[in-house]
């Protein structure tokens, strides 16, 4: 059986018809042997090594964390949060050409309580920053944020008095550059986030700071928050680690 299969594998590269016929018989033989194995399993006749081999072939073991991470990564619920021009390109990824429904992310939720992915699309002005932070706080853990476009990632085209880079007030997982980024770019960014969530890439603020979340502290120690340069231990945004009770 083995020798014939090797020969078949070799010859199927060179010509088609004899290989497909022989391939067919090989497949049928393979299927028959699996059928007999399954019959034995159901009868309870498999024992010892044969049983171990059967289990190894048909069962995938993993840790619970990884399984949960796999499920989480494949089911982001983005929040409908469009600010400016990037919002139009975000609407395009729901459209037909770049269709994120392929990945399972088409269920945009309007309520932050029901969403877990905040795609900050567009320029964050001073007036809007506290609103964004409040919305981010309303989202339930685990939550992720993508900063889409140049304006919220760095200052973008407009480096002036009216804009705030998003890194200043909330932790961002993936930055997608572009002005506006093509829908394909944003889809790439979302897939990178998916890889991150599924544990396949070790970058990100959670790993760097070994933390699980952030908390905003308003007026630390009752002093004017603008004096933060003099007191580096308390700050407006603190990252809390495992075991800290955040309180809020």
């Amino acid at each position, binding site marked *: 059986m083995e020798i014939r299969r090797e020969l078949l594998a070799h010859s199927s590269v060179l010509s088609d018809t004899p290989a497909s016929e022989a391939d067919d018989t090989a497949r049928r033989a393979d299927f028959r042997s699996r059928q007999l194995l399954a019959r034995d399993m159901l009868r309870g006749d498999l024992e010892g090594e044969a049983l171990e081999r059967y289990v190894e072939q048909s069962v995938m073991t993993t840790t619970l964390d990884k399984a949960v991470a796999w499920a989480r990564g494949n089911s982001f619920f983005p929040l*409908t*949060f*469009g*600010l*400016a*021009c990037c*919002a*139009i*390109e975000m*609407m*395009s990824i*729901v*459209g*037909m*050409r770049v269709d994120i429904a392929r990945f399972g992310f088409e269920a945009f939720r*309007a309520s*932050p309580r029901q969403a877990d992915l905040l795609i900050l699309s*567009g*320029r964050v*002005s*001073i*007036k*809007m920053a506290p*609103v964004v932070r409040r*919305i981010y706080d309303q989202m339930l853990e685990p939550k992720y944020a993508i900063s889409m476009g140049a*304006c919220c990632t760095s200052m973008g*085209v*407009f*480096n*002036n*008095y*009216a*804009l705030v880079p998003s890194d200043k007030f909330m932790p961002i997982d993936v930055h997608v550059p572009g*002005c*506006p980024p*093509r829908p394909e770019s944003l889809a790439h960014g979302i897939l990178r986030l998916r890889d991150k969530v599924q544990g396949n890439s070790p970058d990100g603020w959670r790993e760097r700071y070994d933390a699980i979340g952030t908390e905003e502290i308003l007026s630390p120690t009752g002093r004017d928050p603008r004096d933060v340069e003099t007191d580096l231990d308390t700050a407006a945004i603190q990252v809390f680690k495992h075991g800290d009770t955040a309180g809020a």
Partner: protein
Amino acid sequence: MSATSDYRKQEESITMSTESAGMGETHELLTLNIGPHHPATHGVLRLITTLEGEVVRDVRPVIGYVHTGIEKTAEDKSYWKVIPVIERMDYLSYYFNAMAFCGAVETLLGIEVPPRAQYLRVIHLELNRLMSHMVWLGTSALDLGAMSMFWYCFRERETILDLFEMSSGARMHTRYIQVGGVIEDIPVGYAARLQKFLDEMPTRADQYADLLEKNEILLSRLRGVCPLDEQTLLGLGVTGPLLRAAGNPWDLRKAQPYSSYDHFDFKIPVGTHGDNYDRFRVRHAELYESVKIIQQALDGLPEGPHITTDRKVALPPRHELATSMEALIHHFKLVTEGFRVPPGECYYPIEGPRGEYGCFVRADGSAKPARVHMRDPSFSNLQATNAMVKDSYIADLIATLAMIDPVLGGIDR
């Protein structure tokens, strides 16, 4: 039997009128904050609504949530570099923003735009108008509940963005319109692709009409809802499809033609009642007219340069840099410092998808503008919201907001 008649009496006493229900002197007014993050406000618009039951008594828009200080940033950059900055104001009509600014600077400089550039500008402006109306139609239908329109309209939008990408390299914010003309001539194959799009666009617009026209729910949500008369609209400074829906055929493309719009033969759709349904129909009819204009511009596209030949304003073509010293010096001056505009002020109005875009440029003789202000139509149109939705239901508020088509980038600048 008496129970039934009691019930019938109670049933008959419920009226759908929006007059004050006779609940006595103390009927409560509820102040509801809609936004700034809300799926139905088109962008980050905050509406502080005062409700009595389901009826809106007062609505005050609070804006400024996407204020980017574009006008201040533009004072800091040379004229050439202002164009990408100013394009990002009204993010659905970027060609119009650039056109208004370039028109103002060209008036101040006193330079002529070659006819081929004017026709190319018209083609791209009308394509942008189509694209903006597509996004409006898709998102408005989504607000009103007709979800499938969103995908159809965005299919058209993708085709138009492909055309933009073909002519300028970018889908949005293309920097295609420059001072003196356009940045590049259209590539080979563009005309064929544009023609293919123009052939299928009217049938697509018919499809949209078929989808929405006979829909009972849409009609009852739009017909007769929130009308506003022409005089009030004029007092509020409203222009564009909103004013045309009320019966005033004011369109700057016909009234004060710019960039050879007077060479083309097209009609202006005008409504009668000024209600939501008329606003919807006016914008839908404009789709056909835009297709007509683009077809005529494409057929009559003249030969010639695509940007002014004045080397002090426009970059010389690359092949001249190898042979001509003057071209090299001009290129150097334009790229490092930029051209200088003689002192003066100019207000250049054009007709955009939402109304009158007017760019005010004050030049003080240096290479940077001293003041750039965009008169944005959505800024004025938004003031009409209160007058429109007074004493109508909150669901009508959402529908009216969709029909006003505000773009917060232009409102907040």
